Protein backbone atom coordinates (compact mmCIF):
# COMPACT_ATOMS: atom_id res chain seq x y z
CA UNK A 1 0.00 0.00 0.00
CA UNK A 2 1.72 3.14 -1.14
CA UNK A 3 1.00 6.66 0.03
CA UNK A 4 -1.03 7.42 -3.07
CA UNK A 5 -3.13 4.30 -2.45
CA UNK A 6 -3.98 5.48 1.05
CA UNK A 7 -4.81 8.92 -0.31
CA UNK A 8 -6.97 7.36 -3.00
CA UNK A 9 -9.04 5.34 -0.53
CA UNK A 10 -9.40 8.32 1.80
CA UNK A 11 -10.62 10.57 -0.99
CA UNK A 12 -12.88 7.83 -2.33
CA UNK A 13 -14.49 7.36 1.07
CA UNK A 14 -14.84 11.14 1.30
CA UNK A 15 -16.43 11.40 -2.14
CA UNK A 16 -19.00 8.69 -1.45
CA UNK A 17 -19.79 9.77 2.10
CA UNK A 18 -20.32 13.44 1.18
CA UNK A 19 -22.39 12.36 -1.83
CA UNK A 20 -24.59 10.39 0.57
CA UNK A 21 -24.85 13.37 2.95
CA UNK A 22 -26.27 15.48 0.10
CA UNK A 23 -29.58 13.64 0.36
CA UNK A 24 -29.52 13.11 4.10
CA UNK A 25 -29.12 16.62 5.50
CA UNK A 26 -32.01 18.94 6.29
CA UNK A 27 -30.08 22.07 5.43
CA UNK A 28 -30.18 22.76 1.70
CA UNK A 29 -27.08 24.91 1.88
CA UNK A 30 -25.19 22.11 3.56
CA UNK A 31 -26.46 19.75 0.86
CA UNK A 32 -25.02 22.00 -1.87
CA UNK A 33 -21.68 22.24 -0.19
CA UNK A 34 -21.60 18.53 0.61
CA UNK A 35 -21.95 17.98 -3.13
CA UNK A 36 -19.12 20.45 -3.64
CA UNK A 37 -16.94 18.45 -1.26
CA UNK A 38 -17.79 15.26 -3.15
CA UNK A 39 -16.55 16.94 -6.33
CA UNK A 40 -13.42 18.12 -4.53
CA UNK A 41 -12.65 14.58 -3.43
CA UNK A 42 -13.04 13.39 -7.02
CA UNK A 43 -10.83 16.29 -8.10
CA UNK A 44 -8.16 15.11 -5.67
CA UNK A 45 -8.40 11.62 -7.18
CA UNK A 46 -7.96 13.19 -10.61
CA UNK A 47 -4.77 14.81 -9.33
CA UNK A 48 -3.57 11.38 -8.16
CA UNK A 49 -4.42 10.06 -11.63
CA UNK A 50 -1.86 12.51 -13.06
CA UNK A 51 -4.46 14.87 -14.54
CA UNK A 52 -3.38 18.11 -12.81
CA UNK A 53 -5.25 20.51 -15.03
CA UNK A 54 -8.54 18.61 -14.93
CA UNK A 55 -8.34 18.18 -11.15
CA UNK A 56 -7.80 21.84 -10.34
CA UNK A 57 -10.22 22.99 -13.03
CA UNK A 58 -12.86 20.77 -11.40
CA UNK A 59 -12.29 22.45 -8.05
CA UNK A 60 -12.51 25.86 -9.66
CA UNK A 61 -15.66 25.07 -11.62
CA UNK A 62 -17.50 23.27 -8.85
CA UNK A 63 -16.83 26.02 -6.32
CA UNK A 64 -18.67 28.44 -8.59
CA UNK A 65 -21.40 26.00 -9.63
CA UNK A 66 -22.24 24.91 -6.11
CA UNK A 67 -22.26 28.51 -4.93
CA UNK A 68 -24.94 29.22 -7.50
CA UNK A 69 -26.70 26.01 -6.50
CA UNK A 70 -26.76 27.11 -2.86
CA UNK A 71 -28.19 30.50 -3.85
CA UNK A 72 -31.00 28.85 -5.78
CA UNK A 73 -31.64 26.62 -2.80
CA UNK A 74 -32.07 29.58 -0.50
CA UNK A 75 -34.18 31.28 -3.14
CA UNK A 76 -36.65 28.54 -3.91
CA UNK A 77 -36.93 26.58 -0.70
CA UNK A 78 -39.04 28.01 2.08
CA UNK A 79 -37.01 26.12 4.67
CA UNK A 80 -33.45 26.25 3.33
CA UNK A 81 -31.75 25.82 6.69
CA UNK A 82 -33.79 22.76 7.54
CA UNK A 83 -34.81 24.27 10.89
CA UNK A 84 -38.10 22.53 10.28
CA UNK A 85 -37.07 18.92 9.63
CA UNK A 86 -38.43 17.46 6.43
CA UNK A 87 -38.24 14.64 3.97
CA UNK A 88 -39.23 15.63 0.46
CA UNK A 89 -39.07 12.41 -1.49
CA UNK A 90 -41.31 10.36 -3.75
CA UNK A 91 -41.12 6.76 -4.98
CA UNK A 92 -38.54 6.26 -2.30
CA UNK A 93 -38.26 2.46 -2.39
CA UNK A 94 -38.08 2.35 -6.19
CA UNK A 95 -35.31 4.96 -6.11
CA UNK A 96 -33.29 3.07 -3.55
CA UNK A 97 -33.71 -0.05 -5.67
CA UNK A 98 -32.62 1.76 -8.80
CA UNK A 99 -29.59 3.21 -7.02
CA UNK A 100 -28.51 -0.13 -5.63
CA UNK A 101 -29.13 -1.84 -8.97
CA UNK A 102 -27.04 0.78 -10.78
CA UNK A 103 -24.22 0.35 -8.31
CA UNK A 104 -24.43 -3.46 -8.46
CA UNK A 105 -24.60 -3.53 -12.26
CA UNK A 106 -21.76 -1.08 -12.82
CA UNK A 107 -19.72 -2.65 -10.05
CA UNK A 108 -20.18 -6.12 -11.53
CA UNK A 109 -19.21 -4.79 -14.92
CA UNK A 110 -16.06 -3.27 -13.43
CA UNK A 111 -15.15 -6.47 -11.59
CA UNK A 112 -15.95 -8.94 -14.34
CA UNK A 113 -14.61 -7.11 -17.37
CA UNK A 114 -11.07 -7.64 -18.48
CA UNK A 115 -9.89 -4.05 -18.24
CA UNK A 116 -6.93 -2.69 -20.19
CA UNK A 117 -3.81 -1.87 -18.17
CA UNK A 118 -1.66 0.84 -19.56
CA UNK A 119 -0.87 3.65 -17.16
CA UNK A 120 0.23 7.15 -18.13
CA UNK A 121 4.00 7.31 -18.31
CA UNK A 122 5.54 9.47 -15.62
CA UNK A 123 6.72 12.78 -17.02
CA UNK A 124 4.33 12.75 -19.96
CA UNK A 125 3.47 16.38 -20.75
CA UNK A 126 -0.27 15.89 -20.21
CA UNK A 127 -1.23 19.57 -20.00
CA UNK A 128 0.62 20.38 -23.21
CA UNK A 129 -1.06 17.35 -24.82
CA UNK A 130 -4.45 18.62 -23.75
CA UNK A 131 -3.73 22.10 -25.10
CA UNK A 132 -2.55 20.89 -28.50
CA UNK A 133 -5.48 18.48 -28.70
CA UNK A 134 -8.04 21.18 -27.85
CA UNK A 135 -6.66 23.67 -30.34
CA UNK A 136 -5.38 21.12 -32.84
CA UNK A 137 -6.98 17.85 -33.89
CA UNK A 138 -10.15 18.25 -31.82
CA UNK A 139 -10.62 21.95 -32.31
CA UNK A 140 -14.02 21.41 -33.90
CA UNK A 141 -15.26 19.56 -30.81
CA UNK A 142 -13.87 22.23 -28.54
CA UNK A 143 -15.44 24.99 -30.61
CA UNK A 144 -18.74 23.12 -30.64
CA UNK A 145 -18.66 23.03 -26.86
CA UNK A 146 -18.00 26.77 -26.87
CA UNK A 147 -20.88 27.51 -29.22
CA UNK A 148 -23.15 25.24 -27.18
CA UNK A 149 -22.27 27.18 -24.05
CA UNK A 150 -23.07 30.43 -25.84
CA UNK A 151 -26.41 29.01 -26.97
CA UNK A 152 -27.01 27.93 -23.38
CA UNK A 153 -26.42 31.45 -22.16
CA UNK A 154 -28.92 32.85 -24.64
CA UNK A 155 -31.42 30.11 -23.79
CA UNK A 156 -31.17 30.67 -20.04
CA UNK A 157 -31.79 34.37 -20.43
CA UNK A 158 -34.77 33.71 -22.69
CA UNK A 159 -36.19 31.11 -20.30
CA UNK A 160 -35.70 32.95 -17.07
CA UNK A 161 -36.32 36.58 -17.92
CA UNK A 162 -39.68 38.06 -17.21
CA UNK A 163 -40.09 40.18 -20.30
CA UNK A 164 -40.99 37.91 -23.18
CA UNK A 165 -41.47 38.81 -26.82
CA UNK A 166 -45.23 38.85 -26.47
CA UNK A 167 -45.63 40.21 -22.97
CA UNK A 168 -44.57 39.37 -19.45
CA UNK A 169 -43.76 35.70 -19.02
CA UNK A 170 -45.86 35.24 -15.92
CA UNK A 171 -48.97 36.58 -17.58
CA UNK A 172 -49.04 34.06 -20.40
CA UNK A 173 -47.77 35.33 -23.69
CA UNK A 174 -49.94 35.64 -26.73
CA UNK A 175 -48.44 36.36 -30.13
CA UNK A 176 -50.04 39.13 -32.24
CA UNK A 177 -52.19 38.41 -35.28
CA UNK A 178 -50.69 37.42 -38.56
CA UNK A 179 -52.23 40.46 -40.22
CA UNK A 180 -52.82 43.79 -38.47
CA UNK A 181 -55.85 43.48 -36.21
CA UNK A 182 -56.27 39.80 -37.05
CA UNK A 183 -56.81 36.85 -34.78
CA UNK A 184 -53.86 36.03 -32.51
CA UNK A 185 -51.66 33.43 -34.12
CA UNK A 186 -51.25 31.18 -31.10
CA UNK A 187 -53.68 29.47 -28.82
CA UNK A 188 -55.00 31.64 -26.00
CA UNK A 189 -53.46 30.61 -22.69
CA UNK A 190 -56.00 29.04 -20.38
CA UNK A 191 -56.11 30.52 -16.95
CA UNK A 192 -54.49 28.15 -14.56
CA UNK A 193 -56.98 27.13 -11.95
CA UNK A 194 -54.64 25.47 -9.51
CA UNK A 195 -51.44 27.26 -8.77
CA UNK A 196 -49.65 24.85 -6.57
CA UNK A 197 -48.35 26.98 -3.78
CA UNK A 198 -45.86 26.01 -1.16
CA UNK A 199 -48.64 25.12 1.20
CA UNK A 200 -49.41 22.03 -0.81
CA UNK A 201 -46.32 20.03 -0.18
CA UNK A 202 -47.21 18.50 3.11
CA UNK A 203 -44.60 16.53 5.00
Amino acid sequence: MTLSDIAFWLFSAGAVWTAWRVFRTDSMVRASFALMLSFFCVAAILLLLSAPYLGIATIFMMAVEMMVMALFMVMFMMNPAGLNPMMMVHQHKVSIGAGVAAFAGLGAAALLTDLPHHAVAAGKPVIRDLGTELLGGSMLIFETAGITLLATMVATVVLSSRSGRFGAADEGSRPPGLEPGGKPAGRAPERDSDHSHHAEHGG
Partner: protein
Amino acid sequence: MAMKALARIAMRAPIPVFVATGRGWLGPCRKLAASADIAVVANIRQAAILIVAGEPRDEDRDALRRLHDQMPHPRATAWWGTRPFAEADSALEVSATDDPGPLLRRAFAALLARVRESEPDWLPDDPPNPWRGEGDHGQGGKGMMGGTPYGRPMAMTADDLRDGLALDSFSFTVGPFYPSLPPGLALELVLQGDIIQSARIVRPPLDPGKGAADACRSMIVGRMLHLLELDALARRCEAVPVDDRDAVAALRRRIGASGAMRAIPDGLGRIAGADARTRFTRMVAALGDAEASSFAGPGGRLVDLLPGLEWSEAMLVINSFSHRDLVALAPREVEPEEHREGHGT
Protein backbone atom coordinates in the same frame (compact mmCIF):
# COMPACT_ATOMS: atom_id res chain seq x y z
CA MET B 1 -1.31 35.09 33.81
CA ALA B 2 -1.61 35.30 30.07
CA MET B 3 -5.16 36.55 30.48
CA LYS B 4 -3.93 39.31 32.78
CA ALA B 5 -1.30 40.43 30.30
CA LEU B 6 -3.92 40.36 27.57
CA ALA B 7 -6.30 42.44 29.64
CA ARG B 8 -3.55 44.95 30.38
CA ILE B 9 -2.91 45.48 26.68
CA ALA B 10 -6.62 45.55 25.89
CA MET B 11 -7.24 48.26 28.51
CA ARG B 12 -5.21 50.70 26.47
CA ALA B 13 -7.42 50.34 23.39
CA PRO B 14 -10.00 53.03 22.65
CA ILE B 15 -13.18 52.19 24.59
CA PRO B 16 -15.71 50.62 22.23
CA VAL B 17 -19.07 52.18 23.07
CA PHE B 18 -22.48 51.97 21.47
CA VAL B 19 -24.57 55.08 21.93
CA ALA B 20 -28.35 55.00 22.27
CA THR B 21 -29.10 58.63 21.58
CA GLY B 22 -32.06 60.20 23.31
CA ARG B 23 -34.03 63.27 22.34
CA GLY B 24 -31.96 66.43 22.12
CA TRP B 25 -28.70 64.62 22.81
CA LEU B 26 -27.07 64.81 19.38
CA GLY B 27 -24.68 67.60 20.39
CA PRO B 28 -23.15 65.83 23.41
CA CYS B 29 -23.02 62.53 21.50
CA ARG B 30 -21.11 64.24 18.74
CA LYS B 31 -18.54 65.50 21.25
CA LEU B 32 -18.18 61.95 22.52
CA ALA B 33 -17.58 60.66 18.99
CA ALA B 34 -14.87 63.28 18.47
CA SER B 35 -12.75 61.93 21.33
CA ALA B 36 -9.81 59.82 20.16
CA ASP B 37 -10.00 57.84 23.39
CA ILE B 38 -13.46 56.53 22.61
CA ALA B 39 -14.45 54.47 19.60
CA VAL B 40 -18.14 54.81 18.86
CA VAL B 41 -18.92 51.50 17.18
CA ALA B 42 -21.71 50.86 14.72
CA ASN B 43 -22.60 47.43 16.02
CA ILE B 44 -23.54 46.41 19.54
CA ARG B 45 -21.57 43.19 19.10
CA GLN B 46 -18.36 45.23 19.16
CA ALA B 47 -19.27 47.38 22.14
CA ALA B 48 -18.13 46.94 25.73
CA ILE B 49 -20.16 49.79 27.14
CA LEU B 50 -23.64 50.86 26.15
CA ILE B 51 -24.21 54.56 26.70
CA VAL B 52 -27.80 55.58 27.19
CA ALA B 53 -27.63 59.28 26.40
CA GLY B 54 -30.73 61.10 27.58
CA GLU B 55 -34.10 59.77 28.55
CA PRO B 56 -35.22 57.03 26.14
CA ARG B 57 -38.80 57.17 24.83
CA ASP B 58 -41.17 54.94 26.73
CA GLU B 59 -41.84 52.83 23.64
CA ASP B 60 -38.10 52.31 23.06
CA ARG B 61 -37.44 50.82 26.46
CA ASP B 62 -37.97 47.22 25.39
CA ALA B 63 -35.79 47.65 22.32
CA LEU B 64 -33.12 49.09 24.59
CA ARG B 65 -33.30 46.02 26.83
CA ARG B 66 -32.93 43.73 23.83
CA LEU B 67 -30.04 45.84 22.60
CA HIS B 68 -28.31 45.53 25.95
CA ASP B 69 -28.62 41.75 25.97
CA GLN B 70 -26.90 41.48 22.59
CA MET B 71 -23.72 43.01 23.95
CA PRO B 72 -20.90 40.47 24.56
CA HIS B 73 -19.51 40.00 28.06
CA PRO B 74 -17.83 41.66 29.90
CA ARG B 75 -20.18 44.61 29.52
CA ALA B 76 -21.54 47.64 31.32
CA THR B 77 -24.09 50.35 30.78
CA ALA B 78 -23.57 54.04 31.38
CA TRP B 79 -26.58 56.24 31.98
CA TRP B 80 -25.78 59.74 30.85
CA GLY B 81 -28.23 62.31 32.11
CA THR B 82 -30.99 59.81 32.75
CA ARG B 83 -32.13 57.46 35.50
CA PRO B 84 -31.13 53.79 35.14
CA PHE B 85 -33.75 51.11 34.64
CA ALA B 86 -34.83 49.27 37.75
CA GLU B 87 -33.21 46.03 36.57
CA ALA B 88 -29.81 47.67 35.98
CA ASP B 89 -27.69 46.90 39.03
CA SER B 90 -24.49 48.77 39.79
CA ALA B 91 -25.22 51.23 37.01
CA LEU B 92 -22.69 53.82 35.90
CA GLU B 93 -24.39 57.17 36.26
CA VAL B 94 -23.07 60.34 34.64
CA SER B 95 -24.78 63.66 35.14
CA ALA B 96 -25.93 65.46 32.02
CA THR B 97 -23.29 68.15 32.24
CA ASP B 98 -20.30 65.90 32.94
CA ASP B 99 -17.87 64.43 30.46
CA PRO B 100 -18.29 60.66 30.76
CA GLY B 101 -14.75 59.96 29.46
CA PRO B 102 -12.86 59.39 32.77
CA LEU B 103 -15.63 57.31 34.31
CA LEU B 104 -15.87 55.15 31.18
CA ARG B 105 -12.13 54.61 31.19
CA ARG B 106 -12.17 53.44 34.81
CA ALA B 107 -15.14 51.18 34.27
CA PHE B 108 -13.63 49.71 31.10
CA ALA B 109 -10.37 48.86 32.90
CA ALA B 110 -12.30 47.34 35.80
CA LEU B 111 -14.37 45.24 33.41
CA LEU B 112 -11.36 43.84 31.62
CA ALA B 113 -9.50 43.16 34.87
CA ARG B 114 -12.60 41.29 36.03
CA VAL B 115 -12.78 43.61 39.04
CA ARG B 116 -16.14 44.91 37.96
CA GLU B 117 -18.73 42.27 37.31
CA SER B 118 -20.24 42.01 33.86
CA GLU B 119 -23.94 42.92 33.69
CA PRO B 120 -26.38 40.00 33.42
CA ASP B 121 -29.18 39.88 30.85
CA TRP B 122 -32.19 42.11 31.47
CA LEU B 123 -34.60 39.88 29.62
CA PRO B 124 -35.16 36.13 30.00
CA ASP B 125 -33.21 34.13 27.39
CA ASP B 126 -36.11 32.05 26.12
CA PRO B 127 -37.05 31.26 22.54
CA PRO B 128 -40.01 33.45 21.59
CA ASN B 129 -42.15 30.38 20.92
CA PRO B 130 -41.62 26.93 22.35
CA TRP B 131 -41.88 24.53 19.46
CA ARG B 132 -40.20 21.20 20.06
CA GLY B 133 -42.31 18.15 20.53
CA GLU B 134 -45.33 18.64 18.28
CA GLY B 135 -45.88 17.51 14.72
CA ASP B 136 -44.38 14.77 12.55
CA HIS B 137 -40.84 15.91 13.11
CA GLY B 138 -41.32 17.86 16.28
CA GLN B 139 -41.54 21.17 14.49
CA GLY B 140 -44.58 22.29 16.46
CA GLY B 141 -47.21 22.05 13.74
CA LYS B 142 -48.70 19.98 10.98
CA GLY B 143 -46.82 19.10 7.82
CA MET B 144 -43.68 20.72 6.63
CA MET B 145 -45.20 24.16 6.64
CA GLY B 146 -46.78 24.04 10.04
CA GLY B 147 -45.36 25.36 13.22
CA THR B 148 -43.13 28.25 13.99
CA PRO B 149 -39.61 26.90 14.33
CA TYR B 150 -37.79 29.01 16.90
CA GLY B 151 -40.67 31.39 16.96
CA ARG B 152 -40.22 32.50 13.37
CA PRO B 153 -43.15 31.92 11.09
CA MET B 154 -42.25 30.04 7.90
CA ALA B 155 -41.49 32.24 4.91
CA MET B 156 -44.44 32.73 2.59
CA THR B 157 -44.45 33.79 -1.00
CA ALA B 158 -45.53 37.28 -1.95
CA ASP B 159 -45.54 39.41 -5.08
CA ASP B 160 -42.41 41.37 -5.77
CA LEU B 161 -41.57 44.54 -7.59
CA ARG B 162 -38.39 43.60 -9.38
CA ASP B 163 -38.87 40.57 -11.59
CA GLY B 164 -42.26 39.17 -10.69
CA LEU B 165 -40.81 35.90 -9.50
CA ALA B 166 -42.82 36.15 -6.26
CA LEU B 167 -40.46 34.24 -4.00
CA ASP B 168 -40.58 34.15 -0.22
CA SER B 169 -40.76 37.56 1.33
CA PHE B 170 -39.15 38.49 4.58
CA SER B 171 -40.37 41.10 6.98
CA PHE B 172 -38.46 42.55 9.87
CA THR B 173 -38.04 45.69 11.92
CA VAL B 174 -34.89 47.82 12.01
CA GLY B 175 -34.33 50.46 14.62
CA PRO B 176 -34.82 52.46 16.73
CA PHE B 177 -31.09 52.11 17.47
CA TYR B 178 -29.87 50.97 14.06
CA PRO B 179 -26.63 52.87 13.39
CA SER B 180 -27.39 53.58 9.73
CA LEU B 181 -30.71 55.18 10.55
CA PRO B 182 -31.28 58.51 12.29
CA PRO B 183 -31.76 58.06 16.06
CA GLY B 184 -35.22 56.90 16.99
CA LEU B 185 -36.41 55.89 13.53
CA ALA B 186 -37.69 52.33 13.36
CA LEU B 187 -38.98 50.85 10.13
CA GLU B 188 -40.82 47.64 9.45
CA LEU B 189 -39.59 46.47 6.08
CA VAL B 190 -40.78 43.69 3.79
CA LEU B 191 -37.86 42.46 1.72
CA GLN B 192 -37.50 40.23 -1.30
CA GLY B 193 -33.80 39.48 -1.37
CA ASP B 194 -32.43 42.92 -0.64
CA ILE B 195 -35.18 44.84 -2.43
CA ILE B 196 -37.63 46.68 -0.22
CA GLN B 197 -41.20 45.79 -1.11
CA SER B 198 -42.95 47.90 1.46
CA ALA B 199 -42.07 50.01 4.46
CA ARG B 200 -43.95 51.17 7.50
CA ILE B 201 -42.89 53.64 10.15
CA VAL B 202 -42.90 51.89 13.51
CA ARG B 203 -41.35 54.81 15.39
CA PRO B 204 -40.70 58.28 14.05
CA PRO B 205 -37.20 59.75 14.28
CA LEU B 206 -36.43 61.81 17.35
CA ASP B 207 -36.94 65.53 17.04
CA PRO B 208 -33.42 67.01 17.09
CA GLY B 209 -34.60 70.05 19.02
CA LYS B 210 -33.55 73.63 18.45
CA GLY B 211 -29.96 74.72 17.92
CA ALA B 212 -28.65 71.31 16.99
CA ALA B 213 -28.50 71.98 13.25
CA ASP B 214 -24.70 71.86 13.10
CA ALA B 215 -24.36 68.69 15.11
CA CYS B 216 -27.12 67.12 13.04
CA ARG B 217 -25.55 68.03 9.76
CA SER B 218 -22.12 66.64 10.55
CA MET B 219 -23.66 63.49 12.04
CA ILE B 220 -25.78 62.96 8.92
CA VAL B 221 -22.89 63.57 6.55
CA GLY B 222 -20.87 61.19 8.74
CA ARG B 223 -23.55 58.52 8.44
CA MET B 224 -23.66 58.97 4.67
CA LEU B 225 -19.88 58.56 4.52
CA HIS B 226 -20.14 55.40 6.61
CA LEU B 227 -22.71 54.09 4.14
CA LEU B 228 -20.28 54.84 1.32
CA GLU B 229 -17.61 52.81 3.15
CA LEU B 230 -15.52 55.86 4.02
CA ASP B 231 -15.27 55.17 7.75
CA ALA B 232 -12.16 57.20 8.41
CA LEU B 233 -13.52 60.23 6.59
CA ALA B 234 -16.80 59.81 8.44
CA ARG B 235 -14.96 59.93 11.75
CA ARG B 236 -13.18 63.09 10.66
CA CYS B 237 -16.50 64.61 9.67
CA GLU B 238 -18.15 63.75 12.99
CA ALA B 239 -15.27 65.40 14.85
CA VAL B 240 -14.70 68.43 12.64
CA PRO B 241 -14.79 71.73 14.56
CA VAL B 242 -17.57 73.48 12.66
CA ASP B 243 -16.30 76.99 13.36
CA ASP B 244 -12.87 76.27 11.89
CA ARG B 245 -13.30 77.36 8.27
CA ASP B 246 -10.08 75.81 7.00
CA ALA B 247 -10.76 72.43 8.59
CA VAL B 248 -14.25 72.37 7.11
CA ALA B 249 -13.01 73.40 3.67
CA ALA B 250 -10.33 70.68 3.76
CA LEU B 251 -12.95 68.13 4.76
CA ARG B 252 -15.20 69.22 1.92
CA ARG B 253 -12.35 68.80 -0.56
CA ARG B 254 -11.62 65.31 0.75
CA ILE B 255 -15.27 64.30 0.45
CA GLY B 256 -15.38 65.61 -3.10
CA ALA B 257 -12.16 63.81 -4.04
CA SER B 258 -13.42 60.48 -2.72
CA GLY B 259 -16.17 60.48 -5.32
CA ALA B 260 -18.81 60.30 -2.60
CA MET B 261 -21.26 62.49 -4.52
CA ARG B 262 -20.85 60.66 -7.80
CA ALA B 263 -21.18 57.30 -6.06
CA ILE B 264 -24.83 58.06 -5.28
CA PRO B 265 -26.89 57.16 -8.34
CA ASP B 266 -28.56 59.98 -10.21
CA GLY B 267 -32.25 60.45 -9.51
CA LEU B 268 -32.28 58.26 -6.41
CA GLY B 269 -35.07 59.13 -3.98
CA ARG B 270 -36.22 62.19 -5.90
CA ILE B 271 -38.74 64.31 -4.06
CA ALA B 272 -39.66 67.96 -4.62
CA GLY B 273 -37.16 68.20 -7.47
CA ALA B 274 -34.09 67.09 -5.53
CA ASP B 275 -32.55 63.62 -5.45
CA ALA B 276 -30.37 62.07 -2.79
CA ARG B 277 -27.19 63.20 -4.48
CA THR B 278 -28.35 66.84 -4.63
CA ARG B 279 -29.44 66.80 -1.01
CA PHE B 280 -26.15 65.29 0.08
CA THR B 281 -24.17 67.83 -1.96
CA ARG B 282 -26.14 70.66 -0.36
CA MET B 283 -25.62 69.21 3.07
CA VAL B 284 -21.85 68.96 2.56
CA ALA B 285 -21.78 72.53 1.25
CA ALA B 286 -23.67 73.70 4.34
CA LEU B 287 -21.25 72.03 6.78
CA GLY B 288 -20.08 74.56 9.31
CA ASP B 289 -22.66 77.08 8.20
CA ALA B 290 -25.08 77.35 11.10
CA GLU B 291 -27.28 79.80 9.21
CA ALA B 292 -27.86 77.57 6.20
CA SER B 293 -31.52 76.69 6.08
CA SER B 294 -32.36 73.07 5.73
CA PHE B 295 -34.30 71.97 2.70
CA ALA B 296 -37.53 72.30 4.58
CA GLY B 297 -40.98 70.97 3.93
CA PRO B 298 -40.38 68.51 1.07
CA GLY B 299 -43.91 67.21 1.35
CA GLY B 300 -44.55 63.52 0.84
CA ARG B 301 -43.96 60.36 2.80
CA LEU B 302 -40.76 58.47 3.39
CA VAL B 303 -42.53 55.13 3.10
CA ASP B 304 -43.51 55.97 -0.48
CA LEU B 305 -39.90 56.59 -1.46
CA LEU B 306 -38.49 53.30 -0.25
CA PRO B 307 -40.35 50.48 -2.07
CA GLY B 308 -38.38 49.18 -5.03
CA LEU B 309 -35.04 50.35 -3.68
CA GLU B 310 -32.22 48.03 -2.87
CA TRP B 311 -31.13 48.02 0.81
CA SER B 312 -28.10 50.28 0.58
CA GLU B 313 -29.87 52.68 -1.79
CA ALA B 314 -32.70 52.92 0.72
CA MET B 315 -30.24 53.73 3.50
CA LEU B 316 -28.69 56.43 1.32
CA VAL B 317 -32.10 57.96 0.62
CA ILE B 318 -33.13 58.00 4.27
CA ASN B 319 -29.87 59.62 5.37
CA SER B 320 -29.90 62.25 2.64
CA PHE B 321 -32.58 64.19 4.55
CA SER B 322 -31.92 66.55 7.40
CA HIS B 323 -33.39 65.43 10.70
CA ARG B 324 -36.04 68.10 10.59
CA ASP B 325 -37.15 67.07 7.09
CA LEU B 326 -37.20 63.47 8.15
CA VAL B 327 -39.43 64.24 11.10
CA ALA B 328 -41.86 65.78 8.62
CA LEU B 329 -41.52 62.91 6.13
CA ALA B 330 -41.88 60.10 8.65
CA PRO B 331 -44.71 61.00 11.01
CA ARG B 332 -45.94 58.60 13.65
CA GLU B 333 -48.37 56.17 12.10
CA VAL B 334 -51.53 55.62 14.02
CA GLU B 335 -51.67 51.92 14.69
CA PRO B 336 -52.10 50.64 18.19
CA GLU B 337 -50.87 47.15 17.31
CA GLU B 338 -48.05 45.71 19.41
CA HIS B 339 -44.91 44.92 17.42
CA ARG B 340 -42.98 41.76 17.52
CA GLU B 341 -39.32 42.49 17.39
CA GLY B 342 -36.86 45.32 17.20
CA HIS B 343 -33.54 44.46 15.70
CA GLY B 344 -31.09 46.48 17.65
CA THR B 345 -27.77 45.93 15.96
